[in-house]
């Protein structure tokens, strides 16, 4: 039986194994490869996406779990002709080193700002603690979130 959901605003129907994690579904079937695999056990946050506006680990969220829901990946974050303020801040402050974790970092930060447009340092640390950066870009991630928040999220 087909599973219906919305990905980045588009209706998608799939007859894949309902147990397929959204991580592999979006990457392998939809070619949306911005969402990354790092651990597969909810430890690293590289696979962070939004389901109905909430940041979740797509390695732990199955196709079945997302039936009828609204999924957003990094590819769907930018506006029509403008990047999200976080994406712009990430570029301007040159946050990335290898860059592999950054899509997940941005998705976690976007969920934070949607909820809390002017987060405190503590709020930022709390919201971002689930996202690992092996390269150690945490100081610039903090700064970029603050810069984007200053720009109105």
């Amino acid at each position, binding site marked *: 039986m087909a599973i219906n959901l919305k990905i980045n605003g588009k209706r998608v129907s799939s007859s894949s194994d309902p147990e397929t994690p959204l991580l592999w579904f979006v990457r392998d079937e939809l070619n949306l490869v911005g969402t990354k695999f790092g651990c597969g*056990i909810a430890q690293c946050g590289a696979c962070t996406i939004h389901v109905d506006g909430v940041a979740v680990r797509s390695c732990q969220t199955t196709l079945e779990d997302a039936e009828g829901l609204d999924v957003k990946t990094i*590819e769907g974050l930018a506006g029509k002709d403008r990047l999200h303020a976080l994406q712009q801040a990430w570029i301007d402050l040159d946050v*990335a080193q290898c*860059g*592999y974790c950054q899509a997940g970092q941005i998705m976690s930060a976007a969920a934070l700002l949607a909820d809390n447009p002017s987060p405190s340092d503590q709020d930022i640390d709390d919201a971002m603690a689930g996202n690992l*950066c092996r390269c150690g870009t945490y100081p610039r991630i903090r700064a970029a979130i603050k810069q984007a928040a200053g720009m109105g999220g």
Partner: protein
Amino acid sequence: MIDTNISRRAFLGTSGALVVAVSFTACKPKGAGPVTETQVTSTPMNAHVEIGSDGFVTLFAQHPEIGQGVKTSLPMIVAEELDVPWEKVRVRQSEIDPKYGFQFAGGSLSVPMLWQPLREAGATARAMLVSAAAEKLGVEQSQCKTENGFVISGSKRLPYSELAEAAALLPVPDKAELKFKDSQDFKILGRRITGVDNEALVTGRPLFGIDQQFEGLHYGAYTKCPSVGGIVKSANLDEIKAMPGITDAFALDAKGEVDALKPGVAIVGTSTFAVLKAKNALKIDWDLSNASTFNWEEFLERSKSAALKDGGTSLFSDGDVKTAFNSADKTVEHVYAYPFLAHAPLEPQNCTAKVDGDKVEIWAPTQMPTQAVQMVAENFGFKPENIVLNQTRCGGGFGRRLFNDFVAEAVAISQKAGVPVKVQWTREDDMANDYYRPGAVHGCAAALDASGKITGWKVNFHTLSKDGETPGRSPNAYMDNEFPRHLVDHYSVNETVTKMAIPTGWWRAPISNGFAFVYGSFLHEIAHETGQDYVELVLSLYGDDQIIPGPQGSEINTARAKGVIREVAKRSNWGKKLPKGRAQGLAYYYSHSGYIGEVVELEVSADKAVKVHKVDVVADVGPIVNMSGAENQCAGSVIDGLSTMMNLQVNIQNGQIIEGNFDTYPLMRMPSTPEIDVHFIQSNNPPTGLGEPALPPLAPAVCNAIFSATGERVRELPLSKSGFRFA
């Protein structure tokens, strides 16, 4: 798409390649408005520079981007000497081709090795453009200058784009005649230039090895023996093949040499999830008769108890160490140890290969692309000209991707399965099949005279290697001018090597990452136990300004060493009064041609929770190429150093790696991140790399601060072994 293919003879310095004018569609990022098609003609000037008819130049980044920033910093060097504005530069990852020499990312060597050749590439193209302009205008070359992508002569301004075709046909000037910019006139170098892939990264466009997707691609998983050296006896292949989405499953036989294929079972299917699910259902009967039985804790305890006793083979023996110790006024002795480490780059190993008869195309996130091509030619019998290797961005390197075992797997699996395959490792595969930073034990002894001068230095080094004999291959080999050789008259190192089959490799700042902890801590202990000021002791050890000889590129200039120590002390307000439980720690180390001093300020609670407040870094690596990248590398090295020393270790029991994922190999997270201040002492010394040297001093700086804050000396890493944790 190539619309013109003009075969003209060109005098290209490095390759003698043909000039090919290509046209391509200028791509706009997704979501950034409609894509407009523009026909652009591009004229290659040399292996690094192509000049487009649209006023943009394309520069080719030749080495792999692993997060160290070379895809941005190397083209900056070319652009500077070419004299074009950075805004008019497009960067493309180059192909793998002998014209670029040996392409790799390691040893923080990209900048020092390529600084001069890339300046030459830019200056050569610029000189040829000037020649072409002089000819066109009928003036002398000396009447022309360049500025921002134009040749200017009097009131005439000719854009490079109008000169490129003629310039490319001119003779290549002699290197000796090239003129380089004075560093005063740099417009790009030293600036804060943001990464060329930034927009693609933040919008999720495909860049990495794992991102390769194309029609007909299959997905693969490969399971190796949990005990290093085990081979496959049998497996439930029929059961696996019957699972949904699985198209093939087979065992591969192999010797398991470094960089070659290890024995294991391959599963091929139509989605990553299908093959990972089948991997979980895989049952393999292993033949363990030749598997490793190494136990780390056993080695550790044995080595610790032997470390202060005589033994081992002499590596160095300068002066008369025995007499120095016999006649010493005071001696200090301590034993230090550090564990095995995994690289754990965030992108697990993966590789895509498409074998088609006697040809193969590969997409590999590797630090050693040239070596990968050589390995595939040697091990699989492809002619080098039939191997195309596309270098992808790497989701972290840290030395792990200096080995191409994952490339061998993808080629072997695609060849056997007869389909293109992306082989994807799980995190658990990655942890269990690394080339680990080997752990080691150092027994250290120092002899001091009545004035407190260090007169003798003796080390017993307990290490591991594959054959028990040749640690020269090992990433823990002693260097000729390892600290404090040549600074202390009577100096000796003895080495005891234990045989072990666990593969080891280079982990960010190899050798230095462990040695700095040992020597930086030991010096602090010497100062404390002999009642001397620690910073004064270190400075006096370096003595007068001098060059300590070493293998090429590793001579140590003691004036630069003392310079960073003094500067970091000043910037951190070293010695300032702090409340109880809070203290500073300072360490200095020279590695990868970089001079780095660090001061850590931290606080330790009664129950051993460590809050690192601030880290000051002062680095002298010559002139800075990209200020943004340079600061990022230093801050990242500090965080890597802190993350590693607090909680990370790889335990090996009976030849098996115990840690499997980030739950048991807990990298540091944002809340533990200190404020980090990075300062560069810039000089006209040749520029050197920054991917590694800021990591080694962090561990001793932290341990020294913990001692000053609590009185507890840590002599074994990680800190968690002594009950410390992040606050």
